[in-house]
């Protein structure tokens, strides 16, 4: 009965209702879109840091990530490591596993020499963990046909004045103290947008580097790519317990503490954005309801006079706004979802006006792209409902306190 009445009341002045509704829908839909784009930028940044270099989880000997000590390695062919690899392969969460050997040394071509970081990988496995394969601007990704091939960062390539197909010399101190040196064939040049990697990183064949470094059968780390990066910390904790204190299992949040801060600040700014938008939307709703209650004073007076209890009248007004809120939420979710979907599929390219920005170790690509995230929907939806209920509480209270005789007389 009350619900019927509430619907009837809403449609009686459909113009007023539609105006209120459109204000609520548009503010909520825009918020959903803005949060989607926000999440998109964040996902880009996270991907750029984890998928271009670290991976989501890195397993190494304790202290290696801090010191990058050449001698903090572990045997890759030994049984415990092989068992670990087997377990990791069976985990559905784990999408890619790559073993890595790292060396720092001097790269030289002609008269130019530069310090560089060489990452010895199995190229096929590495492509499952990082996306450098898709960042090539020249040449090709090594296919394993020859062992002395590698891909090199674009800034480093420019400084060394080298093209794909040419040879570099790499010199470093091998693990036995001797002077490790060999020729490296550049098969491709990658650009990740991250100045640090582009200016110093080279991916080479693990066996080739192992021989040069005189480090048979060992690696420095195992890098993993997981299905859901935000759940990486849980898996890392599990692995840490399994491997014991001699090893260190770090998820991207620990490898890149700045990135963790970015997420925290993202959550805070999301809340602030919601607060600002909804205080504006809330005032609008409050205004409309207040006016409508004022307009209908006469009607409410009659209702009260015919014997409707004030509490029920209050419920009636609240119910009206709840219905309005629900309709608005549904419309906003559909509209917001559609806009986000459009931005996800198409996006806006800004590369003409701005270039990539490196911030907190991550790279923000020069384009706007949205991603769907559960929190970007439920937060605006819940807030919209709450705001419409809050905004109608005052008018509802006022309506229930009317003196029937006064309002019918038109006082």
């Amino acid at each position, binding site marked *: 009965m009350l619900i019927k009445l509430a619907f009837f009341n809403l449609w009686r002045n459909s113009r007023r209702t539609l105006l209120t509704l459109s204000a609520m829908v548009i503010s909520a839909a825009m918020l959903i879109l803005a949060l989607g784009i926000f999440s998109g930028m964040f996902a880009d940044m996270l991907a750029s840091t984890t998928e271009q270099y670290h991976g989501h989880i890195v397993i190494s000997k304790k202290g290696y990530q801090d010191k990058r000590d050449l001698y903090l390695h572990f045997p890759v062919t030994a049984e415990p490591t092989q068992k670990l690899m087997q377990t990791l392969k069976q985990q559905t969460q784990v999408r890619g596993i790559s073993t890595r050997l790292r060396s720092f040394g001097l790269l*030289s071509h002609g008269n130019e020499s530069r310090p560089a970081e060489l990452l010895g990988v199995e190229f096929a496995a590495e492509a499952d963990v990082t996306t450098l394969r898709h960042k090539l601007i020249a040449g090709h990704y090594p296919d394993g046909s020859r062992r002395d091939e590698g891909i090199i960062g674009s800034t480093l390539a420019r400084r060394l004045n080298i093209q794909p197909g040419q040879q570099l*010399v790499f010199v470093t101190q091998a693990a036995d103290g001797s002077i490790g040196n060999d020729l490296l064939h550049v098969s491709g040049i990658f650009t990740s947008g991250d100045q640090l990697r582009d200016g110093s990183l080279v991916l080479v064949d693990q066996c080739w580097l192992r021989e040069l470094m005189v480090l048979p059968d060992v690696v420095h780390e195992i890098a993993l790519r997981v299905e859901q990066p935000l759940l990486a910390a849980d898996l890392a904790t599990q692995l840490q317990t399994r491997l014991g204190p001699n090893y260190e299992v770090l998820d991207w949040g620990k490898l890149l503490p700045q990135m963790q801060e970015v997420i925290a600040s993202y959550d805070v700014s999301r809340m602030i954005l919601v607060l600002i938008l909804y205080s504006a939307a809330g005032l609008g709703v409050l205004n409309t309801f207040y006016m409508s209650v004022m307009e209908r004073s006469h009607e409410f007076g009659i209702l009260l006079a015919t014997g409707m209890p004030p509490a029920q009248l209050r419920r009636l007004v609240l119910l009206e706004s709840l219905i309005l809120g629900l309709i608005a939420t549904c419309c906003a979710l559909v509209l917001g979802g559609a806009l986000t979907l459009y931005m996800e599929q198409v996006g806006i390219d800004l590369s003409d006006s701005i270039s990539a920005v490196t911030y907190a170790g991550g790279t923000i690509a020069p384009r706007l792209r949205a991603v769907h995230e559960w929190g970007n929907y439920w937060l605006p939806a819940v807030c919209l409902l709450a705001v419409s209920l809050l905004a109608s509480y005052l008018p509802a209270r006022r309506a229930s306190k009317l003196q029937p005789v006064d309002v019918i007389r038109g006082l």
Partner: protein
Amino acid sequence: MVRIILLLVLTISPLTALAETSLAKSDLNNQQLQQLIRQVETQYNGESAHALTTMSVSTENWQRTLSMEFWSWQRERFLTRILRPAKEKGVGTLKIDREVWNYLPKVDRVIKIPSSMMGGAWMGSHITNDDLVKSSHVDKDYQFTLLSADELSYQIECLPWPDTPTVWGKLIYTIDRPTLTPKQIRYFDEEMILVRTIYFDQLQKTGERIIPMRMRVQPADKPGEQTVLHYQSIEFDTGIGPAFFSLRNLKKR
């Protein structure tokens, strides 16, 4: 009475201090100090020199010994080549003025050491590329103070001249007074923390000169590690001119 003693003490103490400094001053003036340091830093150079050495490097993780042949011209140029072990035979280093090149016979390439890598280890030892280039300029880049002088030794402190870019914040030379050869040199960083000490011993008379045939580099933060450079033989004024020190000669095996 107390007053008199106080007075005595007060007047005598500056007098004795004065006496000491004047003794030091009369002993060696600034120019002589610079001359002495220059002599120490160029003890292995001469007009030209040729030497056979072994270099033993011990670190936490490995130990090895290299046999090397050295040539030098004044203090501006030198060339060295590894003779043993076989794996690294022919690996060479050429220094001309303030630039350093390495030759790698395995890949038959010459590599110029970029300035950003000058602090790096030379041939895996505790000697840096900077040592090869800059140490011979200590007498120009630093100013000197005689810290102490007794019958057996001098202690000389070297502080960089203002506005001169140097590797070290302070050097302290201990020099054997009778032979005017170095006993030890202590190297401090800009925060005046000891970084390493080089010890010299096994004095030998070679021609006109008395030189220490053994040099031991001891990093302060890794007491278990060291590099010992041992001169098997050294001869001076061999008649080699500056033209010998070329990239072409570096590549010759």
